[in-house]
Every structure is written in C-alpha cells, then in structure tokens.
C-alpha cells in the first residue's frame, strides 16, 4: 500500500549537481523542497576522508561509489539484429549513486561548449551543405545559443571556483587561453592549475607545431576559493585520485564542497536518502504531474505530492523514469517519430601511449583535470571539407593520474603478466606519458533508448534498453584526432609510441567515458524534442528534466559545465517566470 505524504512545493528526483543547484535556487526563492535520492548521504570527512580516499582497489576496481547493477541496470545491444542482454557489471560508463551524484567522482574538467555546438545541424549544413551529413544522422540545434547560456556557465564556474586561463573575454583574445572558446564575460575565478612535466613538454611541442596550448579548465582548484554562497574550497594537492574517487581535501568542486553546506541549513529543504523514486504520477489529463511515488529502504511505498517535479537523475535514469511513467511519446526508430529515448549519444575518446628513454614524468603528480590542451580540432574549428566527417574534440596531455594498479602501460607486444611484465612496468612507469583525444558524438536514427521487452528491475519495471554503435563519421574523426595528437606527442621525443584510435564496434564492457547523453532532448520543436529551452517538458509543464539527457548530441568536451549551466538557466526560468503562472508552458509549442 502506498501512503500519501503532505504535499510540497517541489520534489527533486536525484540530489546530484543539478538537483543541488535547483534545490538551492528554489529554497532561496522560498519554496519548500523535498529531494529524494536513491543512494546514501555523503560527506567528505565521513565518506571519503583523506585517510582512505586514495584506495584504488576499493574505488576504481570495485566501483565503491557507483550504483550497484543489482539495484538498477540496463540492457544493451548494438542494433536491432541483436537481442539485448542486461549489464551485470559496469563497463564503458559508471552510473553514479548517492548525494552529490557524479559530482562526487568526476574529474572536474570544466569545459564550455563552442558557440557552433549549439547549432550543430544548421551550422554544418550552412558550411558544408546538406548532403555532407549522412542520411541517418539526426543531429539537431539546441534551441538556445551560446549567448543564452553564457551567464549560466559563468554562474557554475564561480560556484565551483574553476581554475583556468581565459582565452576570450568579451571578444578579446587572451594570450595563454583557448583562442577558440566563445566569449566569456570575465576571467576564471582562479588561475589555471600548475602543470607537471608531461603537459609542459607537450605544450612546448604544440607551440613548436604552431598550436596554442592552454591549461585544461579545472574544478580541482589551483588555490583556495570562497564561492558566492560563502562556502570555501581548498587548493588541490595533485594527488591524482579524482575520477571515480571522492576528494578528501575539499579541493574538487562538488555539491558537497559548493552547495550542500548552505542547503542543509535551510529550513525549507529536506533530503530523503536511500529512497528510490519509481514513478512520476500524472493526473487524469496526463498533462500535470501530481508528484512522485518512491520506495524506502524498508520496502515501504510513499506518495510525495508536489506542485512541481524536477527530474534530476543521471541521463539514462531520466529517460527510464519518463518511459516508466508514461510521460511523452516514446521514440520509434522505424518512423523516426516520438521523443523519449531519441538521440541517445556518447563520446569518442582515444589515446596515444608514448614511452621515453630519458624523461621522468612522475605521473603520480596529477589531478583529474590537469593537462595542456589544443582545441584546433574541436567542433568546427577546422575545415572538414576534405575530411569526410563533422565534429571533433580537444586533444592534449591529460594524464589524470599515476595510480599504481592502472598505470601499467607498456609498449604494444609486451608480456601481460609474469616476471618480464613486472620488470617492464618498473622500467616504464615513470617514463611513460599518455596523450588523449576527447571527441564528440553525433546522434543517429538507430542510436536510441527504449524499454526492454524481456528484463525487469527489482521494482518490476522494464529495464531501459540501450541501442548504440559507433558510426563511420565518429570513427573517422577518432582516427584523425589521434593522428593529430600523435604528431605533437612525437615531438616530445619518445623512443616508442602506440596509437589507439577508437575502433568499432562499440564495446560496452571497456571504460571509455561516462558522458552518455540524449533521450530527453531540448529543442524548439516538440516533434523532435521532449523539452523546451528551459528544460520544461512540452507534455507536462510542471515537470522539468535536467542533465545531459537534454543534449541533442554530444560535443567534444566534458559535459558537466553545460549540464550545470542548463540547470541554472532552468532555475532562473522557474523562479522568475514559471512561478508567476505555475503550470503554464514557458514556450508556446
């Protein structure tokens, strides 16, 4: 039996970055907010203290911070000719869990997308012609421009204290920054992180090649910073335990280090952890959300009525929640109609391992967003006319760690076990550096999310099914980007170099990136988007859906800054527009 609780102004599903950002905005505006989180509460000193945060076995190998697949998982297939099977262990991406969400275990690479990324379809057609895009490519414009989102990028960066060197302030190109970035309204809140030897050497080689390398924008702070909410972060210690780990030093921007200390002091905020929302409830019209139903850890079922529902879970779970709740028309790949599950996309990463005779890199001196990058091959920063693909990514010397269990790269053909392997690891550990590419991914008609016909979860819901494979456009791009980063890496003077461009088919069992996106995309046309520009559902106006699920396709940058900026933008729209006439669409379809 489901018991009904007193109604609240707003219910938030998932207390990660976007849930925290919206909870802060709405409680500040005076609303009563209840956040429901499926995982545990997490505090720095209690849950990932410096005394054991750097436990590679626990966090990296055994996935301690992530959702247990036994609690919720997905099925996967490459295409309609295969039968999807459940993922029983995480592989190519890591679904977050618990308060802080992915903000606890991210690398804190805090990029903005390029202005042209927001008009990827119209921009590329304008430059290269309609026939340049493959028929099955379903990339779309976002329904917003870079100028629309710029103030919110700024808000997130100043919340986090992001460390970087601006390349473009109000249209003025700055030395030392990324000359390709969109104009920013002001400098970064803190200077770029210090760079260890590998990135320094790469930057020198890049300059010699004629590029303009710049430090990767970092949420691991170069110096102490107090944000506009009054919360203080410490300087990064370059321990190199960022991605898949919580930061014990209060130096990585996360909801814990930027928002939650203020939020928990507000009387109109409540969080219920270890509670899994199983459904968003609708009234009889199907046009209004009445709240959510959740199950607590005792197995008890509760209805939390609310005037406003904010779906702030991880991208894949947002799609699953809408499909399970019967909200919006599910996407049908055979007709290319419907919106929920449409345009599922990913990112395409690759690497080059370089082995040196005479150079000692001390790779353990690092941070998750250390590195010197080159942006000449991202988005449409270069002419694709002769290349036969669109899109790109940043390339750079971004070795985020020297963790002992993982950092055993050896030249191709080396033994993979035994005494010889040990000897080679010993010889190479300090003398190896990895350079990388971080490419975007277009969306396609056959890459989508739907409900699995066979497998169900612990609550009896059909599992979400992922239908995805790489397409030639992305594989060509990866080859091209890998060659470009290899050109620069070669100038660093290695004795040997191995290139690993991404090749198909997509392997769901090998970690690549957690940057899944799409499925509840934003846009200007309700026929091809689930959300308007304010992340408001076209179908259910008192429902807003945050996260990378709103991306119509993925750019060649880490997505968190854009995810957070969109949440700030939605928060402003809710407080300044929506609440004046609750329940109304902010954009007329």
């Amino acid at each position: 039996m489901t018991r009904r609780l007193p109604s609240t102004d707003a219910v938030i599903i998932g207390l990660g970055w976007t849930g925290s950002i919206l909870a802060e905005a709405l409680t500040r505006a005076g609303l009563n907010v209840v956040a429901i989180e499926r995982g545990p509460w997490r505090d720095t000193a209690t849950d990932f203290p410096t005394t054991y945060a750097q436990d590679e076995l626990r966090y990296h190998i055994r996935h301690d911070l992530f959702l247990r697949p036994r609690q919720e998982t997905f099925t996967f297939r490459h295409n309609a000719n295969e039968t999807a099977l459940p993922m029983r262990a995480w592989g190519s991406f890591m679904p977050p869990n618990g308060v802080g969400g992915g903000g606890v275990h991210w690398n804190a690479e805090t990029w903005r997308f390029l202005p042209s990324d927001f008009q990827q379809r119209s921009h590329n057609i304008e430059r290269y012609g309609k026939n340049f895009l493959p028929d099955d490519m379903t990339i779309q414009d976002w329904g917003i421009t870079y100028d629309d989102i710029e103030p919110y990028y700024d808000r997130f960066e100043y919340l986090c204290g992001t460390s970087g060197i601006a390349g473009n302030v109000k249209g003025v190109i700055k030395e030392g920054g990324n000359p390709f970035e969109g104009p920013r309204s002001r400098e970064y809140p803190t200077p770029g992180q210090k760079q260890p030897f590998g990135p320094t050497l790469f930057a020198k080689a890049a300059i010699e090649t004629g590029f303009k390398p710049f430090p990767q924008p970092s949420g691991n702070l170069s110096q102490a910073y107090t944000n506009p909410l009054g919360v203080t972060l410490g300087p990064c210690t370059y321990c190199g335990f960022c991605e898949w780990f919580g930061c014990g030093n209060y130096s990585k921007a996360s909801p814990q280090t930027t928002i939650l200390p203020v939020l928990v002091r507000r009387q109109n905020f409540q969080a219920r952890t270890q509670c899994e929302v199983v459904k968003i409830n609708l009234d009889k019209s199907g046009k209004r959300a009445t709240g959510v139903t959740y199950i607590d850890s005792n197995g008890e079922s509760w209805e939390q009525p609310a005037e406003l529902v904010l779906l702030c879970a991880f991208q894949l779970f947002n799609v699953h929640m809408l499909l399970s709740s019967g909200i919006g028309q599910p996407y049908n790949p055979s007709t290319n109609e419907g919106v929920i599950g449409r345009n599922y996309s990913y990112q395409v990463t690759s690497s080059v391992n370089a082995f040196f005779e005479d150079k000692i890199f001390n790779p353990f001196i690092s941070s998750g967003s250390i590195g010197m990058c080159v942006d000449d091959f991202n988005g449409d920063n270069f002419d694709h006319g002769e290349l036969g693909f669109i899109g790109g990514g940043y390339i750079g010397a971004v070795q985020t760690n020297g963790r002992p269990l993982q950092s055993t790269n050896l030249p191709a053909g080396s033994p993979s076990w035994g005494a010889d392997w040990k000897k080679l690891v010993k010889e190479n550990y300090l003398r190896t550096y990895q350079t990388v590419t971080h490419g975007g991914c277009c969306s396609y008609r056959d890459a989508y999310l739907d409900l699995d016909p066979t497998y169900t979860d612990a609550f009896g819901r059909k599992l979400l099914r992922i239908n995805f494979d790489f397409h030639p456009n992305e594989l060509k791009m990866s080859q091209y980007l890998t060659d470009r980063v290899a050109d620069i890496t070669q100038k660093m003077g290695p004795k040997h170099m191995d290139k690993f461009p991404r090749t198909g088919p997509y392997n769901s069992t090998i970690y690549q990136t957690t940057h899944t996106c799409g499925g509840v995309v934003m846009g200007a046309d309700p026929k091809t988007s689930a959300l308007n520009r304010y992340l408001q559902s076209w179908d259910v106006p008192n429902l807003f859906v945050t996260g990378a699920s709103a991306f119509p396709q993925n750019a060649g940058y880490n997505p968190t800054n854009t995810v957070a900026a969109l949440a700030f933008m939605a928060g402003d729209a809710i407080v300044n527009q929506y609440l004046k006439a609750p329940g109304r669409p902010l954009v007329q379809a």
Partner: protein
Amino acid sequence: MMRQAACGLLLLLATAGTASADPDGQSFDQISRGRYLAALGDCAACHTIPGGPLYGGGRPLETPFGTLLAPNLTPDRETGIGAWTEEQFVAALRDGKFPGGHLYPAMPYTYYTRMTRDDALAIRAYLATVEPVRNDVVANQLPFPFGIRASMVGWNELFFTPGEFKPVAGKSAEWNRGAYLVEGLGHCGMCHTEKNFLGGDHTSRALQGGVLQGWFSPNVTGDAHTGVGGWSVDDIVEYLQTGHNRIAAATGPMSEVITNSTSKLDHEDLAAIATYLKDTAPQSGAAPVPLAANDAAMRAGAAVYTDHCAACHAAAGTGIVGLFPSLKGSSSVQSVDATSLIRVVLEGAQSVATDPAPTGASMPSFGWKLNDDQIAAAITYIRNSWGNAASPVSAGDVGKSRKQLSQATP
C-alpha cells in the same frame, strides 16, 4: 501595529518601572532582551535536548560526580517553572537556591550571581513566553553522598562568592561590559577555568583552561602564547560570531556555544568580551623553548605530518582560512594540556558551520590508521614547529586518551 505596541510598552514602563517581570506578557522590550540574554547565557545548551522542545529540559549533564538532568524551564506550572515567583527565579539564578533546596553548581549560579536583577527578570519574562512542555524531570541522578542537596551548603561556603558585578573603576565601559558578560551570564570559566577535586573553580587560574568531558577548553586569557593575546579584538569577534577566523576553527563543545549563543550576540558585546579577555592576566612564566628539529620525536613527527597532515594543514602549518585551521601560531595547538589535540587526531572533528561561515569542514579520524607513537610524534612536531613551542606528547598520553575515548559513552 508594532509602533502602537511599542508606544504602549513605553507607557507601561513609565508607570510600572523597570525592575519588575512582565505582569501581563506584553513587555515586548523586556521579552526580546530576555531572549537575547538567554542566548548569551546559553541556557538552551543544557535545558534543551537537541531536536527536542525548547527549554523542555531532560538533557543529561555528565559531571565528575555523576549525572544530572537539566530541569524543565518552560512555563508548565507542574513540571516547569510556571508556578515560580519572581523571587524564586532570581534566587535560583543568583543564589543557587530553588523551591526544592540547593542547586548543584552544574547550574552556573556561581557566575550568574554577578548578573543584575533586571537581567534576571528579563530572562524570566522571556521564558514565560515559550511553549509550555509537560516533562517531569528528576534532575538529581547523583549517587550517595553527592545526591544529598544539603551538601551544597558546605560547598557554597567554600567556593561560592555571591554578589552582583561591580564595575572596576579606571577601566573603560567596554571593558566593564566584557567583564560583566564573561564573569557573569557568559560563564566562560565554567569550562575555561580548571576545577578542583570538588568541582570548584581554581580561581587563581581563572580562564587559563581546564579539562571537561574529555576536552581541554583552552586558555582564553591574554597570554600571547597559549591564550588569545595573539588574536586581535576583531579575530575574537569573528571567531565567536562565525566559529572561524584566520587561525582557528571551533569544534567540540565550543561549536555548540557558538551555534546557540555567541553567533547570536551583538557585535558590541562580542567586542566587549574580546577587550576584557585580552586584558586578563597572562599565565606567568616564560614561553617554553621549542624542541630541536633534529630531536628524534620531531623527525618522526615531521614524516608523519608530511604524509598525513600537510595536504590540508599545509607544509608550513598555515592551513586554509575558513577551511583548515592554522597550526602555526595556534594557541590551542600550544596548550599546556594536549587533551583536545590528541582527541581531535584520534577521533577527527567537525568544525562548526554558521550562516556567515557555512563550510563546516571536518577532519577525519586518524585513530584507526596511526598508532600511539605516530600520533604522539605528529602532535609533538606541530607543537614545536614554525615558531610553536610546547611540551612534547608521549605515546602513553595518546594511549590513555585512546582508552578513555573508547570507554566513553557517545
């Protein structure tokens, strides 16, 4: 409406005088002053169970002689103090006497005796307005012979000097206000003055620090080395207001004092407290000489510090303002008694979060990771580096604390 009420109040005050408790519950000025004074006296710290009804009583107070339960101060006539007369209330605060006999000095009447009758009545007027709670608290849980309240007659003879505060001539009004607050309602010495074996103050060592409930409440005299002599008035005000300043971060019992009491006080009163504290007699004797850097314990401590402490507190011990306290120049790090320091390393600690300083950063526990020798070496090192100087801590000291903490009920 408010203005009319205030006018009415002025009339009332003009006719009734000021030295009377609020006869009809409308004395806005007196009630709000009483609320402020109740915060200043931190009455809620003992008389409210955290999360329980305000002033509903029942919170256990552990004393070296046994447990007392703080009484119900709500206006409930049967189980609270609703039926008390003004005289009874004033006598309880200032003389340690109540309708049932003598109070135990866990109630700081030895300090409250310095407060004016007006202030006592304001608190009374405020307490009369809180929600009555029916909660029959049996305060006295002490074992024989301490359970006999009459024993307090003798105790009072020895350790209680009743009498209202008398301003000291030649000192500024601010100094005198500070003295009134520190020695009276603020009852700072309740924790910060060492107690003798019968629980009375060692008055000759007033405010020089004392151990209570497993914490060493640090020296808050003007001593430049172990007290607040090195802090400016602004440093002290900031600390009391926010829990943090350029050197320190409050934790342990002081967190509660800041949350419930000092963060709610006027800047003027905090500055007065600071002015007075800075002028209190410094500890006699020269500052100790630091251990040599090549001392064996110092070398071992430096290694432990680099591996486990420096990431937050920085190689030079400077910490991060608002986040990690500075160890360099910290009077509490250089305290004569290292009880709190050992405890914080063993158990970890959460610094207080306040509205102006909401971060509330925490230090993790190192008790499971470092052994007694390592902890002793690290503490000895921080007490004798970067210009700090204090007695070394032995592995035995750490082991003793470890044992006590493991036996203490949480």
